[in-house]
């Protein structure tokens, strides 16, 4: 399954080239990628358009098109993503009941596993494997954050 991480990296680099935070994701069903995407936060001005959500929307469209029951389909999906899903994405993936999550580097700012025990709050457990090509994923992020996020206003100075 980790072989699909390369596909996720393709999406992460594509996001980076479009001026987005470089995170990429693919949804794998059996041995087939059925959804793929990178972050689209800046272009949409919507802070929730993370790579995982792009894939969730594609998958739902796929279900409608093929007239498949979404709940069952999600239970067979492996989520492969370059960075640990944030609390929001992790909560969504737990609620949808995906089969497993495989991620690259940890997300110590928003991580759905590192910061909050999402599984406990949502009330479902799914298999989560982290650390697949973590260094590469982290390097992409570090490279990005060296530059400034063009869409964000300057950070307010802390008042003392």
């Amino acid at each position: 399954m980790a072989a699909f991480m390369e596909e996720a990296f393709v999406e992460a680099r594509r996001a980076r080239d479009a001026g987005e935070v470089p995170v990429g994701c693919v949804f794998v069903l059996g041995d087939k990628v059925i959804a793929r995407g990178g972050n689209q936060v800046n272009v949409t001005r919507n802070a929730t358009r993370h790579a995982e959500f792009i894939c969730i929307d594609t998958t739902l469209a796929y279900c409608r098109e093929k007239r498949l029951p979404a709940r069952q389909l999600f239970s067979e999906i492996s989520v492969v993503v370059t960075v640990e899903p944030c609390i929001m994405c992790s909560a969504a993936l737990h609620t949808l009941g995906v089969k497993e999550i495989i991620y690259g580097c940890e997300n110590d700012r928003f991580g759905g596993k590192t910061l909050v025990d999402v599984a406990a709050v949502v009330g479902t457990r799914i298999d989560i494997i982290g650390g697949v090509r973590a260094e590469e994923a982290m390097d992409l992020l570090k490279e990005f954050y060296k530059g400034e996020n063009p869409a964000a206003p300057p950070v307010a100075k802390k008042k003392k």
Partner: protein
Amino acid sequence: MARAGIDQQTDMEISAPPAKRCKFMATEVDDNLEIKAVLTTEYKKDITLIKVHSCQLETKQQLQSVVQELSQKLPHFHHLKRVSDRNVLICPTAEVEHTLEQHLQGHAFSDSVVKALCRDVKVIEVPADRAKLRMQYEKMKKYWPCKFHPDKYAESLQNGSNFTSKQRIFHKQMAQLLRSLTKNVNAGQPVGICVDPRQPSIVAIAGSNDTCSSSHRHCSMLLVDYVARSQQGGATQHQVDFVQDDDASKTTLRGIPKAFHDYIRQDEAYKDVQCGAQMSVEYEQQQVEATADNLAKYGPYLCTGYDVYLLREPCLMCAMALVHSRVKRIFFLLPSDNGALATRFQLHDVKELNHHYEVFQFITDGT
């Protein structure tokens, strides 16, 4: 219902200057609705105690040298007074591995101070954390003299005096609008409203929708995307008719579905409610003073500076979506079984996050 009653009651509560005759008074407002801040754990009633070693010095003359060495070598208890009469706090019991004497020697205390501190040693309980509220302080000082710096704003959140009566009336009006739109326009499905509190003016309204069976399209998720629409963004194709802007308009209604807007404009109860969002800065460059906040300085960015009113307490996904969107305050009416702000979890209490909103719940009498 007695409208004068509302005015009197709120004015008494907040002991603020008498409210000006407010234009929202023409509106029927639910008299039994209170707005309660959902405070994080550090503002809770219960205080935590820790066990510590304390001793009684033989004479007050020893105090100076003892306190000086303690503050250098065992710098604990910044939230407490180190000394009470001749009694001195030494350190938490959990820190001492063997005997207290060995512990002090290990920290290079002088022999005379070790001797002074090892006299009449007791284990006592003292407050573990700093008092944030006067109520906590009153409890804590019974255990040991505490330091306390009153925080007026935190106190006002705790006792409900943070809103002026005019603001309170507006919040209640939004609560009522949530109920009306849910019931009369959105077939009972929950609704969310995003407001720019500066005017105040409605930026976007979203209702979750039964026909989009996608379980993740909760109204908070739709709402932040409708706010994005008001900033010439937006991600999803929505099966919804939105209000079209006039060319002459200085604000935009692009974030408000037509059905909701029509309802508000037709209902007498909401005739004073303003709708429309400030345009993104590409469309309007504003001159503002340097002390202004980010919303005033740079124009709309995500939901920075905006308030969100929700019929239901948001789930963890939605609560985090609102953190990502940098919402200023969240007001909700009904608790949810999977709610992540009060019921199952308190996301705004996670210190490590890069943004924190304030959370308020509308409480109806008897619930």
